[in-house]
């Protein structure tokens, strides 16, 4: 029954989008996290999505999605002169992550839209299945 597959497919997308939302939350939360050394600075995390086919032999089928890995973005930490900061190094500098809040928020909106779409798909599939079960009653 293909309609039952819809729950697996949309469910995999919900889980992938949740991970994406989680990384956005983590990136935004740590946007201002200071450290004393540039290599210790928090790096923005980006999930990589991948299509999952239930049977790799055949491309003639439907597919869900999964998070292949979560990459840490390259990017130079921003240096800030703040000698009064408790984490300042010997020269008086602290280091902050190179996180673009605007692109993170755009990413968040995109993820939440995709999440909504997949919830709609699931609830439509549920309605169709319930009506199929009530067939002839």
């Amino acid at each position, binding site marked *: 029954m293909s309609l039952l597959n819809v729950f697996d497919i949309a469910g995999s997308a919900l889980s992938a989008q949740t991970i994406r939302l989680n990384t956005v939350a983590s990136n935004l939360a740590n946007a201002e996290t200071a450290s004393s050394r540039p290599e210790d600075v928090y790096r923005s995390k980006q999930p990589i999505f991948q299509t999952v086919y239930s049977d790799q032999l055949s491309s*003639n089928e*439907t597919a*869900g999605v999964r998070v292949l890995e979560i990459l840490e973005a390259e990017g130079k930490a921003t240096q800030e002169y703040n000698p009064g900061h408790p984490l300042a190094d010997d020269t008086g500098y602290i280091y902050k992550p190179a996180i673009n809040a605007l692109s993170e928020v755009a990413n968040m909106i995109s993820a939440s839209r995709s999440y909504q779409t997949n919830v709609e798909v699931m609830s*439509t*599939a549920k309605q169709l299945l319930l009506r199929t079960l009530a067939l002839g009653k």
Partner: protein
Amino acid sequence: MRLSLDNILGIHQQALSLHSQRSSVLASNLANADTPGFKARDIDFRAALKQANSAGAEGLKMTHKNHMTAAGGKASGPAELLYRETSQPSLDGNTVDNQIEQAAFSDNAMHYMATLDFLGGRVKGIIGAIRGE
């Protein structure tokens, strides 16, 4: 005349199964809307329904999607997936257009419900005939 359940339900049973297959294809398009390199798929409903309807006693029944089709004979199995033409693919190779897929999904759901109503009418009819009402 011999009553056969297949004759009573008519084309609607094939239509229902094709609609449910299409809904899972469209759901996988929507699920992969953000996956790099994913190509949107769809089925040609008219051709698939024609094939499913004409695959009768002479055709081979395919119980697995990897079964080969017999030469000359028609086979009834899941409909073949085609790739959707897109006007504006993304830079990452993804060809899913969310709006098109959502519209197609709702359209497919409405058709599924219409087919269910037709089937429900047939089932009610046969129940009425059995009871002699």
